């Protein structure tokens, strides 16, 4: 507390003193604070950009109107080249005003005076002006998988070295509609290639100069092995592939089967991608299906299959009779098919043919078809399996009966002895 006899205005001085003391303390501590503060990367002294939108009124009067341009004596054939869309004023660069980039005198109505000191292309004559704002230019665009030459260009600009590339070469007329900052405008690679060719820029054939390939296959493949277009990445030619890509397989994208980005994860079997929708058969889908069409190829097989000419009941094990050899072997193209797939295509014969004309339990036959139908040939029957022809001929000859071949059932319709 201040002594009673001190003037009342002393607190005023004390307050101001304390405020200044705080500031002094801050300023004394400033070197320490500055030492602690991250030191900005020194950059060359930047020229000041005039914030010149209000200073560009006369530019706008002429260059926003074709009629005004022609009235000012502009060449009608070239008027459109210098006609500016008023909407460009609302782009980030357009807001800076015409004279910021193009110089001249934007408040002077006289055309010749207004164009004194005109800068046609700022990025050609004063490229460092672009770098006032665009300081941290990326070396890569990871989302587009592109490398940029920004580093070399910026270094050249700051060093004042000659540089064959200007900002506007790639970024166009940024103040006049084309605004790459928004990312809405995508250049075709042809634009780059044409420019590179004009300027004899080396490394044109080396894709990785500009592109950051997503596939880790450089040891075995070149980009051109698959990619055939400079316009679109997804235009590819399947010049190399472990298995032929035909039918519907030829029409799908690489990464509908392969894992992005390195093509791994495939054993080149159908089950890599397809899930068997039925319980019969095995994972060797190609036994019945083709890439031309999963369903259509199977339906074609079914349509072409013959019916089973004998009852199936009790004979479900088809391969027991229809082996790869024997009387009625399976066709060559059926090899590998499993037993449970036969009836998927081959339907059982109609019931009418199932009425057997001869007792199937004849003398202990017990339904064993092959006894009478060797090789499962149901178009004929043969009694000779049990009844030796020589013996039968002798017995029948003794009774004066000849010509018995294939006529057994004429006299023995039920297999009985006469």
């Amino acid at each position: 507390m201040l002594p009673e006899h001190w003037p009342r205005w002393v607190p005023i001085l004390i307050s101001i003193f304390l405020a200044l003391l705080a500031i002094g303390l801050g300023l004394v501590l400033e070197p320490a604070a500055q030492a602690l503060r991250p030191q900005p990367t020194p950059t060359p002294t930047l020229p000041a950009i005039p914030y010149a939108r209000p200073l560009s009124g006369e530019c706008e009067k002429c260059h926003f109107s074709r009629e005004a341009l022609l009235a000012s004596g502009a060449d009608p054939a070239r008027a459109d080249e210098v006609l500016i869309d008023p909407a460009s004023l609302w782009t980030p660069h357009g807001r800076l005003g015409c004279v910021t980039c193009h110089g001249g005198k934007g408040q002077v109505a006289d055309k010749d005076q207004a164009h004194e000191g005109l800068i046609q292309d700022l990025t050609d004559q004063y490229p460092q002006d672009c770098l006032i704002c665009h300081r941290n230019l990326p070396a890569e665009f990871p989302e587009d998988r592109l490398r940029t030459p920004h580093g070399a260009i910026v270094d050249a600009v700051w060093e004042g070295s000659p540089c064959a590339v200007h900002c506007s070469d790639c970024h166009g007329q940024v103040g006049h509609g084309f605004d790459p900052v928004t990312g809405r405008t995508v250049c075709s690679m042809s634009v780059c290639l044409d420019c590179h060719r004009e300027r004899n820029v080396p490394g044109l054939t080396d894709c990785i100069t500009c592109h950051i390939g997503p596939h880790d296959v450089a040891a075995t493949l070149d980009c051109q092995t698959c990619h055939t277009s400079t316009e679109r990445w997804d235009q590819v030619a399947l010049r190399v592939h472990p298995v032929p890509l035909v039918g519907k397989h030829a029409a799908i994208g690489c990464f509908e089967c392969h894992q992005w980005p390195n093509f791994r994860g495939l054993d080149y079997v159908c089950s890599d991608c397809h899930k068997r929708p039925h319980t019969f058969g095995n994972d060797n889908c190609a036994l019945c299906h083709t890439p031309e069409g999963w369903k259509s190829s199977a339906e074609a097989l079914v349509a072409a299959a013959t019916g089973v000419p004998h009852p199936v009941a009790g004979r479900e094990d088809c391969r027991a009779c229809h082996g790869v050899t024997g009387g009625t072997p399976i066709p060559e193209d059926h090899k590998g098919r499993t037993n449970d797939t036969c009836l998927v295509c081959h339907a059982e014969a109609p019931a009418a043919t199932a009425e057997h004309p001869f007792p199937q339990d004849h003398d202990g036959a017990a339904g064993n078809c092959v006894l009478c139908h060797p090789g499962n040939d149901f178009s004929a029957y043969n009694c000779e399996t049990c009844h030796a022809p020589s013996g039968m001929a002798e017995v029948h000859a003794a009774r004066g009966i000849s010509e018995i071949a294939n006529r057994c059932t004429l006299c023995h319709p039920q297999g009985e002895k006469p």
Partner: protein
Amino acid sequence: MSQPHWGWLVAIYLFLGGMGAGCFLVAAAVEWTGERYKHAFCPTTLVGATVPGPLIALGTVLLIFDLGAGKMEPWRIFYMFTHFRSAMTWGIWILTLFIPLCFLYGLVELMHVYPGILAWARRWLAFLPEDLPYRRIKRILCPVGSVFAVGTAVYTGVLLSVVRAIPFWNTPVLPFLFLVSALSTGMGLNIDLSGTIAVGPMERRFRNLPLYHMVFIGGEALLIGLLLLLAFLRGGAAAQSAQMIVTGPTGLIFWVVVVLFGLLIPFLFHAYAYGARQHSLAGGILSGAGIVIAGLFLRYLIVASGIPVAL
């Protein structure tokens, strides 16, 4: 890379502008509520009326000199009065009106405390009346000035928050933070420091004073937290700025000077003072000094850590 253009001069301007506005608002509140007239001598209104003018004027001079043109072509400052879409124009109008108002309020308060000033002035300005209705004059000056004081305090935050190129600043939280901080530093200087030094513990005069202190300190802490949280959530340059403050090279200043001495210790001190209904002289001064110095460093940290977006 943090922005290299604004440094201590701007931070000091923001600090002086905010603290001056806060002092004015505290004095105006004491004047308007009649608390000033309950004691023979009220250092709160005397300091709060006379100090803001010089402080804000000094800060404004620093701001003008921080602008390059302020040193080379100071007359260009007048261009700033006509660009009404610019926040700087709003600010320059607020300051242009508020600074004279502060000096006028200070003069009236001094004349009220020292009636001899009017008698002395009448020797040169004979048209002046023998006496002036000081209280009635101040009842007009205080509310009008308070509007401009709030405008000044908010404007110091708006000045930064309109800079879209620096995402950490570009948030509506900043004007609110600077307003609350202005009130807090104003109370710190006007009451904790000056008042305590002049007449002893101020709780004897303003019973709920520690509660107000706690509200403003707590509010300031919440707004600082919100500012940092939003910056971290926004990511990019804003998060980098926040990280620079919290864990970067200036993290020590933030945690020790701003959080410990500027927020935590004063809050605990005032909480104790509110509960015990008393506090020591040294405690009040320490609390006030912490709040004031933290107010300066808070603004410095925010200014210095502004990282512009890369184009």
